[in-house]
């Protein structure tokens, strides 16, 4: 702790950042919280309805479906974590062309979701290139984006494709911290590669796995709007509607900012819970 004068100077330095956070983060959040208790058309009507919006959500089919889709998304989390981890281990163990694969895997992470959506729209639409390929080999084409049984999983797969490069880099960084002596010792003791992975490398990577798990979940729940918008528009029915898409729908198309704010608050609560877990993990890892 410095002198009062030093503290004042310190405060002066952090004031701009604090001000920005307060104006652009805290204030909109509080405003959204207040708005969630009102029935508003965004222009002239502003009627206090208490918990009315939250009560209405309980019987809203579209919201219920979006929560179900979110749960399915969370249930697929092991794939989102395991795939980049396995690929990172392979690259780390020196598969031929590892550097090339690392660059290629990371490449989609620099593209905007709208561009990725447009690319996959051309590939996956009914008259797209994937179906043309299926037809060429005598298989039946599938309406990947227009059928309720495939659309959600296709959407997740595209999101996974576009983001796993970042997780892969985090795993590679984590793998560089695995002590080589441990691996060597295991090998000398006669452990097979699978046993080394399972009993040595993965336990050391545990904090990284937890971190990637949390970051991936938050990313998937808050950054899939562009993909949904371009690829499926939330359909067919509500099969690819996630809460963030529903928020946009209620606000932008249905003129119900109060109702949209209520969904936002619930999504925020979920995110806040996950962020709390993330902070716990990161503070635990700080001692490693």
């Amino acid at each position, binding site marked *: 702790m410095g002198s009062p004068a030093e503290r004042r100077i310190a405060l002066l330095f952090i004031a701009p950042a604090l001000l920005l956070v307060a104006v652009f983060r805290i204030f909109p959040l509080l405003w959204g919280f207040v708005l969630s208790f009102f029935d*508003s*058309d*965004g*222009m*002239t*009507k502003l009627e206090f309805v208490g918990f009315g919006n939250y009560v209405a959500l309980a019987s809203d*089919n*579209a919201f219920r479906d979006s929560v179900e889709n979110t749960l399915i998304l969370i249930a697929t989390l092991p794939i989102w974590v395991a795939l980049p981890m396995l690929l990172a281990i392979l690259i780390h163990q020196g598969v031929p062309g590892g550097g090339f694969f690392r660059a290629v895997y990371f490449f989609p992470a620099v593209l905007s979701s709208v561009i990725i959506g447009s690319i996959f729209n051309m590939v*996956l*639409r*009914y*008259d797209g290139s994937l179906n043309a390929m299926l037809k060429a080999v005598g298989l039946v*084409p599938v*309406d*990947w*984006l*227009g*059928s*309720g049984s495939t659309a959600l999983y296709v959407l997740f797969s595209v999101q996974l494709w576009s983001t796993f490069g970042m997780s892969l880099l985090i795993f590679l960084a984590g793998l560089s911290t695995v002590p080589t002596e441990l691996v060597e010792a295991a090998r000398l003791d006669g452990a097979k590669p699978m046993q080394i992975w399972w009993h040595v490398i993965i336990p050391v990577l545990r904090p990284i796995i937890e971190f990637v798990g949390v970051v991936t979940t938050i990313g998937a729940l808050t950054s899939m709007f562009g993909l949904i918008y371009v690829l*499926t*528009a939330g*359909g*067919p*029915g*509500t099969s690819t509607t996630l809460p963030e898409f529903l928020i*946009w*729908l209620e*606000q*932008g*198309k*249905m*003129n119900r*900012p109060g109702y949209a704010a209520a969904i936002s608050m619930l999504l925020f609560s979920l995110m806040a819970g996950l962020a709390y877990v993330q902070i716990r993990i990161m503070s635990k890892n700080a001692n490693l």
Partner: protein
Amino acid sequence: MRMTLKAALMLGTLLSGTSAWAQEITVWDWKSSDPLSVPYYQKAKEVFEAAHPGVTINYVMQPHDQYYTLLGTALSSNAGPDMFLMNGGAQAKARFGALLKLDDKVADIKDDLVGWEEFADANGVYAVPLSIQGFVVYYNKKLYTDAGLDAAKPPKTWAELAKVCDAIKAKGAVPCFAMGNKEGFGIEFWFSSIAATSWTLDEQAEFAAGKLKWSSEPVKAILQSWVDANKNGWFPQGANSTAKFMDEYEGFMRGEAANTIGLISDVAHWKQFDEFLGAENDGVFPMPSPTAAADKKEGEPNFPLAGGIGYGINKASANADLAVAFAKVLASPELEQIFFNDAGAVAANAKVDTAGVKSPAAIEILKIMATSGAPMAHANATAKELEEIHRLSQLLLNGETTVDEAVKRMDEVQAEAHK
């Protein structure tokens, strides 16, 4: 250095002084930079600014898919434009609260324009209509001929349409209808096109008021026809993953479907189709219906017609009177003539001369308009009903729900929306 600062200060004072007496009318739309509409908007700006020295028109074009979101945000934060373009019907009606009531201000042009009802309620009128909008079926005459059909005789009854689709299907080259229902717009066009003939005027009014239930026979029959048309192979596979604007229409323009339900103004209309198919191949007919309402005749199909787009004046605008004057310029016969000639918009101003039009499709549309026109049913449904029918229409095409289940759900949404 000091001189430069002084000069900058003087310039600043001069500029701020200028802005104190110069007036700017901010106009929001989604069309003013569209190449086909540019001549119309530029001419309107020139005419108005010449008549009102010191006043400038500032067009701000917004993307259409985000338009109402941006508009809502701007209006709620009191930063809305002086005047803004709107689609008639539900979109306009949802914004009446923010609009200036225009009845006494537009009395002088009231009789010159049609389409006011899409921008009015029981209290009065809230926008000046620019164009007329409607849905007609466009057909590719070459594909009709290829399938052994008489391209000069488009179908007038449902049975004739079924024969056409059977012939197109038998030929096997293209689907009967182009269909894009990714955002659920496909059902809107299908719904209103069939309701125009299968519902009486009373039924249209009852539906708008939320009294004609979705489970009632006239409404249910339309959803059944949607399912049957798909089952009979009239639509292409993959309609749920095809965007209506513009994937469906681009397919039609490439000659990949025999028919499409299109618009008469703005986009996906005769001018655009003429350009791609050739005016000689672009045919038009009003959509027939499986049943004809008691006040209509079988074989004389009606078509949905409504005020297309129009300008409303922000009631919080400090320049409301000037904005009204500019809306009148935009709707004047001289300017609307340019809008019709260049952009192919069927003008709301009845004084526009349409005699010089050469397009056979446009001539046919004007002929149909002279004798028929029904309310646009979907535009009179609530936003909640529309959103739900978008979703259900996709499930109906996929066979993931039945018509009975869909209308039951729609009844609930309708009751909730009209509470």
